[in-house]
């Protein structure tokens, strides 16, 4: 059965100071499962990911053309102006599309405040609900048991894996409908990375996930859809991981060059 898409990208180009990073990308991502973007470094994976929540606009000299459509609760929404409807308001967009970065970006404050700050500022969460929502999100990432008695200690004292799960929980507490992950395990040791991977496989039952990965083995473990990006920032080539192993994936990466014909759906 064909799944409803979660994201549709139409003729999307992003440039910084006139230098194109991705060009005319056409893409459709399924509404469930983990879509993993793979490709050589510098091919525009992160830029494509950041285009989905308009985060490229935070950088100077960024120019974006084309459109990104998100299929969230309440139907279809457009991300960029110039579509057939007004684009999603920035705060609303980023609340509904959660993001986690490569290195854990915990705020230099307590564990509790790390979680409470976005809830208070972005979700307008009333003070009486704070504790409950923070606990629920921390339980979702298996962190509650480890930190419930040190919520008031600095978050920077947690281990790398715990910090990354805290960042994941911080995004989850805003009740997103789509998760963007930019190499979420790249800075973690094998054990912590595996823990996060298991977590993602559990979370994907509730949220569609789009992630960038450098590790081919990880991509094969997690992906329900693989998106192989060429070096020219053109549309990624989509395929399923079934029947692929690291060697064949590496070969696919090699042959997806700038001028390769793009298979899009």
């Amino acid at each position, binding site marked *: 059965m064909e799944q409803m898409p979660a994201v549709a990208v139409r003729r999307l180009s992003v440039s910084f100071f006139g230098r194109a990073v991705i060009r005319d990308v056409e893409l459709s991502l399924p509404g469930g499962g983990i879509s993993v973007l793979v490709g050589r470094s510098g091919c525009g994976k992160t830029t494509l990911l950041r285009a989905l929540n308009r985060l490229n606009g935070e950088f100077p000299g960024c120019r974006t053309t084309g459109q990104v459509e998100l299929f969230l609760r309440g139907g279809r929404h457009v991300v960029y102006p110039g579509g057939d409807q007004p684009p999603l308001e920035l705060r*609303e967009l980023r609340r509904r599309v959660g993001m986690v970065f490569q290195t854990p*970006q915990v705020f230099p*404050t307590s564990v509790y405040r790390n979680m409470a700050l976005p809830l208070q500022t972005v979700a307008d969460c009333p003070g009486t609900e704070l504790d409950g929502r923070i606990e629920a999100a921390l339980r979702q990432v298996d962190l509650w048991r480890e930190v419930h008695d040190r919520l*008031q200690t600095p978050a920077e004292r947690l281990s790398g894996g715990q910090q990354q799960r805290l960042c994941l929980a911080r995004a989850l507490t805003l009740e997103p409908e789509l998760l963007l992950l930019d190499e979420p395990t790249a800075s973690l040791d094998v054990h912590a990375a595996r823990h996060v991977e298991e977590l993602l496989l559990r979370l994907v039952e509730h949220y569609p996930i789009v992630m960038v990965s450098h590790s081919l083995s990880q991509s094969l473990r997690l992906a329900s859809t693989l998106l192989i990006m060429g070096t020219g920032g053109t549309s990624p080539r989509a395929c399923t991981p079934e029947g692929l192993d690291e060697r064949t994936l590496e070969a696919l990466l090699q042959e997806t060059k700038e001028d390769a014909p793009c298979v899009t759906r």
Partner: protein
Amino acid sequence: MRDAGFRCFQAAARLSAVLVPAFVFILLGYLLWRGLPVLGTKLLFAGVPPLDAVSGRVPVWDGLWPACAGTFRLVLLTVALALFPGVGCGLYLAGLATPRQKHVFGAAVDMLAGMPSIVMGLFGFMLILFLRRTFFPGANTGLLLAASCLALLVLPVLIVSTREAVESVPETLKLAAAALGMSRVQTLLRLCLPAAAPGISGGVVLAVGRAAEDTAVILFTGVVADAGLAAGLLDKFEALSFEIFYISAQYQDQEELLRGFGAAVFLLLVSCVLLLAARVLERAFHRRWQGKR
């Protein structure tokens, strides 16, 4: 040969490093050696019962109490006046200004920082003359004017320390806040400002020191040698820094000179108390915001 060169360099660097604590030690040692023996309630209150003197019921004419209280009030008023615009301007420059604005405002702040304090005092004095001739014939120099001019003097210190502290918050953290949906103003006020608190408190400490020691500004704007306790914001006042200058300029015997050293020790104490207060406040805030260590 290279080894000998390195050793020379190492020795010179070590000597320079040792010089600083040595001078501090000599300076403090001399001051305490001369000042401590005369220190006491007699120097402070000159025979007036301390409680009566502190509450202002009995005026103190010969003691240093009015100067101590004057300096204390002057510094507090100065910091109160300068804190909000200083931190606000620093935040704006670090987080919201366009590159062009940063350039223009930054140059203005640098210029203000380079202004000699005597010029600032003269400016305050001219302001009062102008006000007397135009809107307020009754305007006169006093505590508020002196604190305003001092606030102008310490403003750049606060602006620069705030700006640097806020700018040193990593870009990746600001990006993470943006990705959560926080607006630029929310990120600045709820994330960068608290994270920059230690830097800002460092600026406050510098400002307190500068305001406590400056004599040139208050010379023109309201300090007098025998004002007693200032009754209000518009009254003339005494200050320790001016007291030290005054005593050392016209002492007639050894005992009077020692009073000057006593005043210097008191000035040091008042500064220490204010700095300690700033540090305690910062610690308390830090613990609240960052979590218990």
